């Protein structure tokens, strides 16, 4: 800033600063104020409070409790459901995106995009009730499956169990995969496969040496985003489980509601901070890969 002021030969530093402020920052102030107050401030405050004891002294106790039982199981379950739902949805979703993007008409592609958008985002509570009706003990789908020889409820299955929740999560994870992976497919240029073929590559060779290496980073990125979405989902799990499946978002919700009391008042904040750290480990690489691929995806 100073060097710029000198270069411009501004009369006084104060006025130059003001001029530069008006020119460079002022129009962004409303947006920055809203983001600052409604987003950065609460997050920073939570991080700060998570290091405070009940008497407002600095402590690491909250974090020590956060990684002990029962919160440990909560994290393990949440990470597991994020990983499993992402792993199961990723490949079929990518394949579906590939066929739809490369073979579908433009109308079909747009329709699928809109439908996926609705399914991936409107989820939450309605989704939970929909599955309760479809795959509950009295559900039609359950009866059909039973008729076909697969009795879902012969064992310990319930929609609030890990497997039950996993099935419900797939219903929004798969469309999410189609949404986030499609742009990568669109940017695979026809010329590349034609060039490879002209140079004598077989279909197999093209995929092994060009197609898959090009799509792989986007595939991993999409997987990471799916993980983050499954890991932090709250609404569906809250509606379907009845306290039988420890998941971190539900545990935080319980502490926040005061339904569950803990000796440490700020335990919930520490759990929130650990969640942010885990989520960041997935989302930040996702954003970095997206940014990198955006370079060659630009036409």
């Amino acid at each position, binding site marked *: 800033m100073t060097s710029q002021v000198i270069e411009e030969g501004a009369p006084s530093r104060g006025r130059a600063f003001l001029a530069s402020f008006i*020119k*460079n*920052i002022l*129009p*962004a102030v*409303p*947006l920055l104020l*809203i*983001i600052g107050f*409604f987003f950065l401030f*609460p*997050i920073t405050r*939570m991080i700060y409070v998570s290091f405070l004891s009940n008497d407002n002294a600095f402590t690491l106790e909250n974090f020590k409790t956060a990684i002990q039982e029962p919160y440990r199981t909560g994290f393990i379950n949440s990470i597991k459901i994020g990983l499993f739902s992402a792993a199961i949805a990723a490949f079929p979703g990518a394949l*579906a995106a590939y066929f*739809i993007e490369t073979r*579908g008409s*433009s*109308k079909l592609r*747009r*329709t699928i995009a*809109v*439908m996926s*958008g*609705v*399914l991936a985002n*409107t*989820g*939450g*509570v*309605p*989704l*939970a*009730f*929909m599955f309760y*009706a*479809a*795959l509950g003990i009295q*559900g*039609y*789908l359950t009866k059909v499956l039973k008729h076909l020889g697969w009795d879902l409820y012969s064992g310990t299955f319930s929609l609030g169990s890990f497997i039950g929740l996993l099935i419900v999560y797939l219903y929004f994870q*798969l469309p999410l995969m189609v949404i986030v992976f499609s742009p990568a497919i669109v940017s695979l240029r026809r010329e590349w496969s034609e060039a490879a073929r002209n140079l004598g590559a077989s279909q197999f060779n093209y995929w092994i040496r060009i197609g898959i290496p090009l799509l792989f980073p986007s595939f991993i990125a999409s997987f990471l985003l799916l993980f983050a979405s499954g*890991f*932090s989902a*709250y*609404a569906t799990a*809250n509606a379907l489980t009845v306290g039988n499946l420890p998941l971190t*978002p539900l545990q*935080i*919700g319980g502490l*926040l*509601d005061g339904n569950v009391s803990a000796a440490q008042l700020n335990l*919930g*904040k520490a759990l*929130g901070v650990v969640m*942010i750290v885990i*989520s*960041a480990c997935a*989302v930040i690489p996702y*954003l970095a890969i997206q940014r990198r691929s955006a370079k060659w995806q630009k*036409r």
Partner: protein
Amino acid sequence: MAKALRVKFQPPLALTLLILGFFVFLPMLSAFEYSIRTPLTGGYGWTHYIWAVTEDDFFHYILRSMWLAGVTVLITLFVLVPTLTWLHLSNSKVRGLIDGISLLPLVIPVVAFAVGAQIAFPEFVQNTVLELPFLYFVLALPYAYRSLDIGLNSIPLKTITEAARSAGANWMRTITTVIVPVIRGSVMATIALTFALSLGEYTLTVLLHWDTFPTWVTYVAQDNILGAIAISMMSLIIPFLILTVITLFVPERSTQGRK
């Protein structure tokens, strides 16, 4: 080339669509069948749907959710369109910073955000339901920002603005009557997205102890699970159908986006 491909029958595509169709519609239809059962007579009927729409709370909460979503859309447009236009025109140094910050809400799980919101805001903010539109704005920011950013990138913004300005339009007029119409595709997408997200938001709303349409559904479920299922079916199927029909019948714009 594309046209020729469209006519040809595509077995892999057909199979994909068939599997996806089963995956999406089997649970939906099965749930629908459940929602129109009438336990007393053993037949089918609209009992639960009629019950839901004749509840006073039904329209009360729908209206409430709608106006909250409307306010969120207004905040989004009023704040983001001018700011992004300026960022694109000025090449300001803060652009990189704001680009980065706009993606941050993706990193923060909503539950954690709710914890922060509950402890950080002063009383006067927590006491008004108007805190919700601002928080919804933050949640929708990564998508809204990107959508408008792409729209502004795809037009010769500088030329258009200079033309409007030299024809005597002030900044407000330039933005509302020139820039917004030119990027209407992005603006419409932003509105749809922000509105839908606000309308369906549950986690933050319930953890901050507010009542909106989605939280009312869980409340209903405590006494009348069949009513709650009927409401859920409506809130899943109606937007689904409306949006799909719109996409199918609104002609595609060929001007925006790709070269």
